[in-house]
């Protein structure tokens, strides 16, 4: 007994000395580790901020676009059409509509370019010399169709002069924003000298201004009128795909995870399934695109470039992510909670649904939202199922041809009119990133809210 006591006293003494001696070293390591962690975070945040900053500075100009305010005269000498057919008594609805279509076609055939040309000439300073092509080059081509639509909607415009805001062409926009080198010789400029001079003059006179480009969100993609190209089609396509992923990947993924984790017997088959789910999560996304093309398009005959196929492919891609995240969330639930429920006589299913799922719900929700956000940004598989096709309409159903936001970015990035589309691409990226940030913020918000409740 006695020598043990001596040992303890000696040990206590040694402890006192050793602790004191090692303290400064321990604190140093502590400080180093913290400093390292802080540095890592600062670097990561810096990189993210740089990326966002670059995107924002490059993309911001695209949100403001050169717009002309022109006095447009619906000249009866040019628009030589009869007044629209009135519905005769006794005429059937179908007949009336057919007559209306004939009239609309005649309106379309009117020389709308001449109307635009006159409007531009009238805006130019008196005596300014400009040829027809030069005048038309100032205005985006889709504006002719818009004038036609205005007239069809209101035939009373004939003979009137109204002020119309029209988008300047992409080349005009480039010139005015300086995205094309203004010092280049005439031969290498997209616009003639007259057009450029006129553009500068109109800008100085305030007849051209930079207005917010709402059409970026309301228009679909356009080749013939690049200045009027928008994201609406791609956005709706992405939305359909997101809904499909939410509707399929989340319930299937969560249900499989629950089954595998809570109910499946542990044997070789379930081990094999587990290994393969992990493998699936590591499969490059482009392979899922190939699979989608082969299975959904070739075998099941689903249409090319359709959000339904994209949604199914992204569902396959997202499933393993959701399954793995859900399983690890379930595994984190302590056995004692399950035992507590089982001990009062809850069945395994009741235990899972009444006790295990509620506590894991925030984590499952977060993983699902992040999985969906990932799917939303996925590009490679979409290229293989034709979603990078040029589509100039908003898909009415998920079975219609459509693009998707990331595929649209890819398309714009490769557009020939680099000067104009560089900013456009960044703007589209900003929209996509904005969507992602919204989704992730939603995930964080829901998680903190649900975790506080209980």
């Amino acid at each position, binding site marked *: 007994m006695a020598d043990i006591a001596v040992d303890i006293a000696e040990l206590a003494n040694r402890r006192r000395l050793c602790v004191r001696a090692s303290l400064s070293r321990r604190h140093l390591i502590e400080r180093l580790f913290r400093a390292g962690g802080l540095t890592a975070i600062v670097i990561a945040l810096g990189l993210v901020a740089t990326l966002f900053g670059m995107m924002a500075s490059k993309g911001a100009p695209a949100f403001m676009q050169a717009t002309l305010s022109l006095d447009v005269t619906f000249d009866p000498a040019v628009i030589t059409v009869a007044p629209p057919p009135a519905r005769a008594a006794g005429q059937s609805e179908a007949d009336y509509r057919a007559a209306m279509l004939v009239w609309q076609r005649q309106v379309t055939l009117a020389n709308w370019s001449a109307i635009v040309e006159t409007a531009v000439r009238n805006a130019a300073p008196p005596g300014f010399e400009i040829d027809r092509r030069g005048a038309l080059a100032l205005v985006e081509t889709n504006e002719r169709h818009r004038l036609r639509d205005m007239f069809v909607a209101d035939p009373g415009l004939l003979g009137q002069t109204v002020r119309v805001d029209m988008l300047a062409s992409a080349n005009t926009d480039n010139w005015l924003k300086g995205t094309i080198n203004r010092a280049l010789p005439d031969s290498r400029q997209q616009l003639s000298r007259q057009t450029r001079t006129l553009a500068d003059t109109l800008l100085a006179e305030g007849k051209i201004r930079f207005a917010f480009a709402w059409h970026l969100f309301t228009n679909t993609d356009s080749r013939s009128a690049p200045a009027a190209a928008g994201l609406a089609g791609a956005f709706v396509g992405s939305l359909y795909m997101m809904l499909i992923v939410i509707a399929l990947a989340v319930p299937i993924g969560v249900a499989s995870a629950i089954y595998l984790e809570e109910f499946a017997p542990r044997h070789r088959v379930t081990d094999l399934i587990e290994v393969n789910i992990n493998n699936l999560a590591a499969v490059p996304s482009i392979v899922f695109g190939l699979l989608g093309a082969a299975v959904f398009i070739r075998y099941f005959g689903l249409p090319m470039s359709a959000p339904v196929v994209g949604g199914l492919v992204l569902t396959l891609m997202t499933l393993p992510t959701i399954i793995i995240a859900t399983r690890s969330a379930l595994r984190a639930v302590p056995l004692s909670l399950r*035992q*507590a429920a089982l001990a009062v006589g809850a069945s395994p299913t009741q235990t899972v649904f009444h006790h295990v799922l509620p506590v894991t719900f925030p984590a499952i929700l977060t993983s699902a939202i992040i999985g969906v956000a990932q799917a939303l940004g996925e590009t490679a598989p979409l290229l293989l199922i034709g979603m990078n096709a040029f589509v100039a309409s908003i898909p009415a159903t998920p079975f219609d041809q459509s693009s998707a936001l990331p595929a649209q970015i890819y398309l714009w990035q490769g557009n020939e009119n680099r000067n104009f589309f560089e900013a456009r691409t960044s703007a589209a990226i900003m929209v996509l990133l904005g969507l992602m940030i919204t989704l992730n913020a939603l995930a964080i918000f829901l998680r903190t809210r649900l975790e506080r409740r209980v």
Partner: protein
Amino acid sequence: MTVSIPPDNTGAPHAPVSASAAGPAYGETVRTPDTVPRDVRLRARHVDVFYGDKQALFDVSLDIPEKAVTSLIGPSGCGKTTFLRCVNRMNDTIEDCRVTGEITLDGQNIYDPSLDVVELRSRVGMVFQKPNPFPKSVYENVAYGPRIHGLARSRAELEDIVVASLRRAGLWEEVKDRLREPGTGLSGGQQQRLCIARAIAVSPEVILMDEPCSALDPIATAVIEELIDELRLLYTIIIVTHSMQQAARVSQRTAFFHLGRLVEEGPTEVILRHPQAKKTQDYITGRIG
């Protein structure tokens, strides 16, 4: 196979039934029968439990009398919790845990494949060594069992059950104003009483209590002991305890486990005052533990 304990015909009160007298069916357990015979509804026969390759219980055979409290005592790690978990098949939830032998409740083997374990657990309630309330409100904790079994015919009746259970567990006064607050926010001792209230809310026939008072102060302990004494009149209770005094206060029979074996069982006063087996004597007098 169910084997009944042969009548004690040696004449002497509390005479031990030695292994040789009882035959191989009883292992090496020293048994002292009750002077007043009690009905036995729960029997364990030749129970072996393995965690993987490691055997935790060796050939345990024990009769648990009805309307009485049986306490399980023994040094830490001797298998008391393991035995308790066999009775409501909570061992099923532990991976690699294997139980052989037979445990019968009312003559039916609870390990029979035809037996519904959900029904078994509604008949055999359990209070765990570590308090494990649901991360839900105090009210929900107690109401959960009666609700899933459909015990209450109305909301009001469910409320009555909850209040009565909380009262009997000696928790009512402390939580009556915080029924909507999470049960996990209570103190350790309050949580344990909440778990007791949760267990008795479904009125089980057998109640297993694994050191229910280890986290309680003497006053709360007294409340629980009173509760146990009250419940005894209706139920079959098995309690694991490290306190000899508690065993003496609440239990009628005591079983002493050592290193996975049931060394001795008999009326509590015999085990605590005149233990027959050498190991029991050593444990009671504090020489092993």
